[in-house]
């Protein structure tokens, strides 16, 4: 069938600069650069996904990938994109598939919230010369602590629940081996160790070479239970029960058989080439009471030595659900907003289901405080955090820490082309093809991740000092330090913040 889909981009090649070296041909797994009968390089626009790999590697800067969105006559409803989707489905009869997070122009509330700073009446702090505490502990905190005096020294009598101890309030999000390459997993693990934080295996199991990073690893138990056994649970610093993911709330996962090669098969413990299906629900969890049983069977399995996290997507009733999770015995509630990324999700679900993480954080923090159970579980927010300002605003809204997924991929080289589900990632990240995977050097990728988090942490310290605060703990849920611009009364009510210009008290 002839396709009616028009190319959305155009490949421009500066013939004066091009030396016909064919780097672009070798670099493009999508086949957008070809060589003709005379040995001359040419481009096929329709195959280009705009990942910018060829542009970045072209030694003479001869390539440009430009927007070539087809012209649609006078129509804001039937855009080029809506027409393209219909053509694609008319030609295949399939479910539209995509990768990464929701790209639609929904409000980004981070950009409508501004941070406070000290002027005259209280001094700001210079983090370059004064101690600044970003140390974060995730886990259940006691309602009160009892202290007794032994030989004149105070001793903590209360037995504390297990905690994750981090140097910065930033963790790496769950990205499974299978969805991302082995080198990507190794880079995340190594960067976490260097940074004193944690990476998350996702539901794809833990590769045997990466068990050495167990003290910096959060392992996931999802509905497919891939690669879950007692050594896997023992190796980890914490265990996360995955209920939902921001990019696809309410639906399960599906790693196509093409991505299940021998190493992925070994780690997931399923035969080579078979589809890895994660059902939408855990069929042993139909209620908060059932969730509690999985939480406690994991606590029993690890003898109460590790925090148990429960990850959900931010949906309409998220605050009440979070309250149930805290009461079910979870030590950490991870909540993933509707801009959270994915290796593969149906486009309609990614773009239309769930709620923004900003509103979810505020709603959860408010609810848990009202119920007097905020100390029982830490809240980790995820879903499209772009920079340190987003992170510090999330903490002021009430999050304890933040998961980075897409930002971590971008640090490693991802250009958010949204083609992760094809397995042809030219940057060697979302692929299992050995030829593509080796493009991602784990030494360099780990360094890039380390550098990004180091930079963000410095910026957080600077902004914190500017507010006259020397410990991140003092900013947590301190929404007086946020002010709104361009939001409605209802939006400000849910966020629990005032309009810019209103006084501090």
């Amino acid at each position, binding site marked *: 069938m002839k396709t009616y889909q028009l190319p959305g981009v155009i490949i421009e090649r500066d013939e004066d600069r091009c030396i016909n070296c064919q780097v672009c041909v070798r670099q493009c797994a999508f086949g957008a650069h070809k060589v003709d009968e005379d040995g001359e390089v040419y481009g096929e626009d329709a195959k280009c996904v705009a990942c910018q790999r060829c542009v970045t590697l072209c030694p003479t800067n001869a390539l440009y990938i430009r927007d070539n969105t087809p012209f649609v006559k006078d129509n804001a409803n039937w855009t080029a994109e809506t027409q393209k989707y219909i053509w694609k489905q008319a030609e295949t009869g399939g479910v539209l598939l995509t990768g990464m997070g929701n790209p639609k122009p929904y409000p980004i509330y981070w950009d409508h919230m501004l941070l406070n700073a000290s002027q005259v009446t209280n001094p700001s702090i210079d983090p370059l010369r004064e101690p600044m505490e970003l140390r974060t502990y995730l886990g259940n905190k006691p309602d009160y602590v009892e202290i007794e005096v032994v030989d004149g020294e105070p001793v903590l009598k209360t037995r504390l629940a297990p905690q994750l101890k981090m140097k910065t309030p930033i963790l790496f999000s769950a990205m499974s081996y299978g969805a991302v390459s082995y080198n990507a997993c190794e880079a995340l693990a190594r960067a976490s160790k260097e940074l004193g934080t944690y990476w998350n295996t996702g539901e794809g199991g833990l590769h045997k070479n990466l068990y050495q990073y167990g003290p910096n690893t959060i392992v996931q138990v999802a509905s497919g239970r891939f690669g879950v*056994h007692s050594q896997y649970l023992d190796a980890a610093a914490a265990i996360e029960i995955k209920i939902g993911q921001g990019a696809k709330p309410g639906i399960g996962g599906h790693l196509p058989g093409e991505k299940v090669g021998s190493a992925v098969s070994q780690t997931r413990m399923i035969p080579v080439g078979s589809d890895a299906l994660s059902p939408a629900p855990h*069929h042993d969890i139909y209620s908060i009471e059932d969730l509690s049983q999985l939480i406690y*069977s994991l606590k*029993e399995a*690890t003898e109460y030595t590790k925090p148990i996290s429960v990850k959900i997507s931010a949906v309409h009733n998220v605050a009440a659900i979070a309250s149930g999770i805290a009461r079910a015995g979870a030590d950490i509630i991870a909540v993933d907003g509707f801009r959270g990324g994915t290796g593969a999700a149906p486009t309609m679900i990614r773009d239309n289901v769930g709620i923004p993480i900003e509103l979810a954080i505020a709603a959860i923090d408010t609810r848990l405080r009202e119920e007097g159970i905020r100390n029982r579980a830490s809240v980790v927010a995820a879903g499209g955090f772009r920079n340190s300002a987003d992170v510090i605003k999330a903490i002021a809204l009430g999050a304890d820490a933040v998961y980075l997924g897409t930002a971590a991929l971008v640090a490693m080289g991802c250009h958010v082309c949204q083609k992760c589900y094809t397995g042809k990632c030219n940057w060697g990240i979302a692929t299992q093809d050995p030829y593509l995977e080796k493009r991602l050097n784990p030494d360099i990728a780990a360094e890039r991740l380390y550098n990004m988090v180091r930079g963000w942490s410095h910026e957080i310290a600077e902004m914190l000092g500017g507010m006259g605060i020397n410990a991140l703990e003092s900013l947590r849920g301190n929404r007086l330090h946020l002010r709104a611009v361009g939001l409605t009364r209802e939006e400000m009510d849910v966020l629990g913040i005032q309009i810019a210009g209103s006084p501090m008290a």
Partner: protein
Amino acid sequence: MIINAKGMYYRNLNEKVREAVDSGEIDIKLVNVNGQRYIADAIDTPVNITIEGVPGNNLGAFMSGPVVVVTANGQDHIANTMNDGKIIVHGDAGDVLGYGMRGGKLFIKGDVGYRVGIHMKEYHDKVPVIVVGGTAQDFFGEYMAGGTLILLGLDTGSYDNDRIAGNYLATGMHGGVIYIRGRLEDYQLGKEVSQLELDGDDRAVVEKYVTEFADDMGLNAEEILAEEFIKIKPVSHRPYGNLYAY
């Protein structure tokens, strides 16, 4: 070693069981068990645990090695994500047994509830096996990705079911095999599977596990094997391969 579970909170009971295992006890008997959850959870030492009474949910979750014998009925979630070992229940058991099980054996003498043996998977020599003596409710073997499920439909349970299995059997199945003693109506099956005759290899597998089951339960294997069995296998190991528009 005998542990009296009467009136004991599950956390204390399981701590005592773990202590017994750590101290090198091989035969551990729990008496007066009455609904305590998570017994033998994640224990990876090959010990023998006998349970007198009804254990609570998640018996043998993440377990890897022990042989657990329950003299009465079991509850829900037995052998949840179990890795290795064997659980024998001399009575009926509840819902979602052997969820995501990847190795070892689960034998239930009587009837079982809904969603039993779902999402089991196998890898190389790790092949989980569940044998149910009585009948099963809906979604038996749902999402099954590997392993062996055997349903005998014997009148050994407490329910008077007129059908061996409920509906939606093996819905979404994409690996492994199910053997059923008797025939099912096609409407009881998920659309991803079909009913087949047994070949010689199948008969050897059925005979092996039914004989072991009968020995454990004090039943006559020859009588059980005298009836016809059918085999249920997925039509494709990629049931959802053509679902997406790339």
